[in-house]
């Protein structure tokens, strides 16, 4: 069975708009945010339906290539290594933040060779792009997804979102942890239609509303 075949019709959510599980807060303060130098805030566990769906389509020991647009997180790389042959770590938000003027197209240029990735993990990135950047990034990312490949993104649907993108850590195939944000800022609240149009080459397979003020999107390239 090819990769494309495995991707078809095996989602756990059973359709769009599944109801996500409520996040649970962990009293322990381990699991350092890492790299940011920030003081630790409580860790929150989140059941990620999109992640569960994505991994349900993969087989361990596969030869997948992934693009992780978040910062380098060792535990994520190690987890992904169960499934993937290669993972490219992009840290797009960090790159844009450290570059003046911001240039999404240039930042993504080397990261997004056409038709390469079986999985793109955009995480919390899209919220931190303005409308024009979103269009540019979405077009580049959509091109980089291989036929049958997936793109996972998370959007804040509440009026306020964390001041910095959440740093998701993969605990298992359907559980993420992140640290409670220390600051907030207004969220662009990109509607689903806007995202679907931006990722025009991809098809929205699942959209999950989570109770944490998050909405997960799982796009697939036909």
């Amino acid at each position: 069975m090819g990769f494309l075949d495995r991707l078809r019709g095996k989602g756990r959510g059973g359709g769009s708009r599944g109801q996500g599980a409520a996040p649970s807060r962990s009293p322990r303060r381990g699991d350092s945010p890492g790299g940011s130098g920030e003081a630790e805030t409580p860790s929150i566990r989140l059941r990620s339906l999109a992640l569960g769906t994505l991994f349900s389509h993969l087989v361990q020991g596969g030869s997948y290539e992934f693009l992780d647009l978040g910062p380098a997180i060792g535990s994520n790389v190690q987890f992904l290594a169960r499934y993937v042959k290669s993972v490219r770590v992009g840290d797009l938000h960090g790159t844009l933040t450290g570059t003046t003027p911001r240039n999404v197209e240039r930042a993504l240029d080397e990261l997004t060779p056409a038709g390469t990735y079986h999985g793109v993990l955009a995480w919390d990135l899209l919220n931190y792009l303005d409308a024009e950047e979103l269009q540019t990034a979405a077009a580049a990312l959509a091109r980089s997804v291989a036929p049958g490949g997936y793109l996972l993104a998370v959007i804040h649907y509440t009026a306020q979102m964390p001041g910095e993108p959440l740093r998701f850590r993969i605990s298992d195939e359907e559980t993420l942890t992140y640290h409670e944000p220390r600051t907030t800022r207004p969220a662009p609240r990109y509607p689903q239609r806007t995202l679907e149009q931006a990722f025009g080459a991809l098809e929205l397979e699942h959209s999950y509303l989570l109770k944490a003020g998050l909405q997960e999107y799982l796009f697939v390239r036909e």
Partner: protein
Amino acid sequence: MAWKRNEPDIPSTPSPAPASPAPPSRPQSSGRGGERAVIGGSITVQGDIKGQEDLTILGQVKGTIDVKEHTVTVGQSGKVKADVHAKLIVVEGRVEGNLFGSDQIVLRSTADVQGNLTAPRVALEDGAQFKGAIDMEPGTKAKGGGPGGSTGSGGASSSGGASGSGSSGSGSSGSGSSGSGSAKGDSGGGDKPPSGGASSSGSGSSGRG
């Protein structure tokens, strides 16, 4: 793929080298019967380095590094613009280049790496800055593994010697490193004995069937 929780023999590096001059270079045992060369903190090497012993870099290297059967450690003060080929590569400093580890690559929390990593096992500690691709070598993945970073401990220890040029030899042992290119600076680095304990990062758990 193997993401082992505890890996022995991953060396820790000396602290950044002091600015003052140091005694002459003297290769030291790496604790595994081999030798270790140290490029001190004030040394700049431009060119290709090949060798048959472990190499610790506290200074700057531009070129290529090839010690395929041994360990390359880039200390916190180390700055490397080079492709590195080694058995085990441990980075605590800055690297621009591609790293090829036939056994393992470890990026410690202070590491800042831009380049691609190729190794059967790769460990990134929290705080490590990394941009690039991580490629697991074909046929070496299915050894188990799992999520979560952890830190183990090993037993490697050494006392360092400073190398004041681009090459160092191990004299009586017959092994040595050779550097083609130029080396600048005095031998002010690398004379500080490394800490004796070694630690490794990784994780281990059984994969899901």
